[in-house]
């Protein structure tokens, strides 16, 4: 009996080690993507990639997916829309990746949509806005919390109306993302009978905003909805501080990209006070889920060496969540079959470090989780203050609300 037991144990042991060896010998699962690592979008692309890399290391430490290690194949798309179609063709035809992640932002993502749809690949989107609205790819899943197209403008204008706002000014960058926001804002304002008293799109590379702010101020709006890109956001706030926007403005901000990035926030300091702006994650009560705290501890350590945003609230945890989405689907379907993965993601809610994510038919969030938060009590030159709660109080969504709006805007700035 003893001999039999010994033989059985030995055979089992050899078998297990052979299976284990076979697992280790299996090629890794390749996830391909381009990322803006240089160019104007790199300030977002780099932290986003760091979030994905932290997920890769975590999943590999747990044995990978389907018993195979996960490997990332990443190319720099230089923030350019003209680079991405060729890079994704290369990822599919030469690197033969198993899964695809989209690059950060709308502009580099939009041109790859037809290719990805034609090849029948699942694409985990990365903070692009409305890129699938015309393509209708049924395997697109955006990691961003935007939700329905008009949710962003609705939330902001709601806050403005509750503060007594009756007229709207739109100041937007002449680029796809900002123009999409402006379009929905016009529609929402129209439905609510809010007259638009100023509506201007400024061109990229605008150096000086004081003239535009003067013209905006002359229109005397109550609500100022700004959709701007990082270099412009800082320029606009400086001009607002120097010129002023008028005492009647009750709400200012909405869609200013850049005011979510640590170095920009630290430099802008007290100029941020009063601005109500969109965000995706903030260190406020109710924003912590399973793994969130551990993620930021790891991110803080690695951000210094990677020379990226030391806070990383805006994009990095969603990069990690992209990995969690795909891992959940691969594990549940036990395969890399694109249709099966897409079906799973359409039908199931996935728990991530940024909260539970469920998709609607168009691959966007079923429900918006985009925050509108007001900067309050910000002092100059102190990046650590943003790690504490109470500095960006959440006004929307209601279930995450962590403070009250200070209005009018000029009063909130003091």
């Amino acid at each position, binding site marked *: 009996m003893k001999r039999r037991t010994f033989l059985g144990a030995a055979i089992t042991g050899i078998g297990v080690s052979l299976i284990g060896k076979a697992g280790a010998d299996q090629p890794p699962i390749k996830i391909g993507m381009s990322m803006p*690592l*240089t160019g104007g979008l790199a300030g977002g692309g780099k932290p986003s990639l760091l979030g994905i890399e932290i997920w890769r290391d975590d999943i590999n430490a747990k044995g990978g997916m389907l018993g195979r290690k996960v490997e990332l194949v990443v190319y720099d798309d230089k923030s350019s829309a003209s680079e991405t179609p060729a890079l994704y063709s290369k990822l599919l035809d030469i690197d033969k990746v198993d899964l695809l992640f989209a690059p950060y932002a709308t502009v580099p993502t939009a041109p790859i949509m037809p290719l990805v749809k034609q090849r029948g690949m699942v694409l985990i989107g990365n903070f692009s806005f409305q890129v699938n609205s015309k393509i209708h790819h049924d395997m697109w899943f955006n990691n961003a919390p935007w939700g329905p197209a008009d949710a962003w403008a609705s939330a902001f204008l709601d806050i403005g109306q509750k503060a007594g706002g009756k007229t709207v000014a739109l100041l937007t960058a*002449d680029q796809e993302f900002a123009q999409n926001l402006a379009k929905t804002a016009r529609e929402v304002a129209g439905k609510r009978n809010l007259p638009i008293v100023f509506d*201007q799109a400024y061109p*990229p590379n605008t150096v000086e905003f004081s*003239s*535009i702010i003067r013209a905006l101020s002359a229109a005397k709006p109550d609500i100022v909805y700004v959709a701007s890109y*990082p270099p412009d956001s800082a320029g606009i706030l400086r001009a607002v501080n*120097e010129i002023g926007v008028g005492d009647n403005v009750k709400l200012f901000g909405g869609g200013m990209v850049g005011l979510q*990035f640590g170095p920009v926030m630290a430099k802008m300091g007290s100029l941020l006070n009063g601005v109500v702006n969109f965000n995706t994650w903030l260190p406020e009560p109710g924003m912590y889920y399973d793994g969130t705290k551990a993620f930021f501890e790891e991110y803080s350590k690695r951000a210094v060496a990677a020379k990226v945003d030391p806070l990383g609230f805006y994009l990095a945890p969603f990069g990690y969540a992209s990995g969690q989405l795909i891992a959940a689907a691969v594990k549940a379907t036990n395969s890399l079959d694109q249709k099966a993965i897409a079906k799973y993601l359409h039908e199931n809610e996935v728990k991530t470090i940024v909260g539970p994510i469920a998709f609607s038919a168009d691959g966007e969030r079923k429900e918006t989780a985009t925050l509108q938060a007001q900067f309050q009590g910000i002092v100059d030159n102190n990046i650590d203050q943003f790690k504490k709660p109470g500095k960006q109080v959440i006004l929307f969504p209601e279930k995450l609300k962590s403070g009250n709006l200070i209005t009018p805007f000029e009063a909130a700035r003091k």
Partner: protein
Amino acid sequence: MFSMDLLLEAVVTGVLLGCFYAAVSIGLSVSFGLLDVPQVAHPAFLVMASYAVFFLNDGYDIDPLLAGVLITPLLFVFGLLAYRLYYETFERRGTDAAVRGIAFFFGIAFIIEVLLILYFGVDQRSVTASYIGKSWRIAGMRVPLRLMVAFAVAGGLTLLLSVYLSRTFMGRAIRAVAQDEEAVRLMGANPVRIKQWAFGIATAVLGVAGALLIIVSPVDPTLDRAYIGRTFCVVVMAGLGSMTGTLIAAIILGIAETIVLTMFGASWAPAISFALLLGILAVRPQGLLGRR
């Protein structure tokens, strides 16, 4: 809606903005306007200077303008070396040097951009100083103080360079090389050395210009791309090699841009610089103050 107050404010801001454009273009007026060097890396040098100013301001709390002055000698040496490299590898070798020179300077611009990304990262950088973020109230008008600083410094720079080029021996030698290089050679002078010196000066003025750039708005490593069109437009519109013309052309551009931004809609502003350029060249092919 038309308003005289808005128009007046637009003109004042335009003059100040124009002076800033003059400050960032005046080095190019020397290197491209006088020396015929296709210095497409000029805006990249400018951004590099801004980062050096950021380094001194952020790390050592030095005022940005003072930091700009401190890095000027280093930029002068950098300019000397860059021109020597360009001369040895391109200009000396043939008549199509200008075309190949463009590739050389594009390469340098790209290398500078990558080095800035590697050292400083990709995030925007800005500086702090007592005159940033504040405004002066003049006749009921709020004028950004940082633009007034740009106005004063640009005026000073233009005056300094004009005096240097017209009153000093080396300045006149630079103008002579620009007019007839062969004649200078026949006089026993070394035109290459003179051009190298002039290129050094064109690069050195970027110290203060780079400080103004980061004072006026935040910078990132790719900002040079935004300034290529504007700086070349100013220099060509001015009339190649004219320092006073550069200031005048930049002010015209600044006023036109701000009036359009304020009164007619921001979307039209980018077309203004090139529409003005075409208009002026149609009437005066040699530029505003250029010689035939």
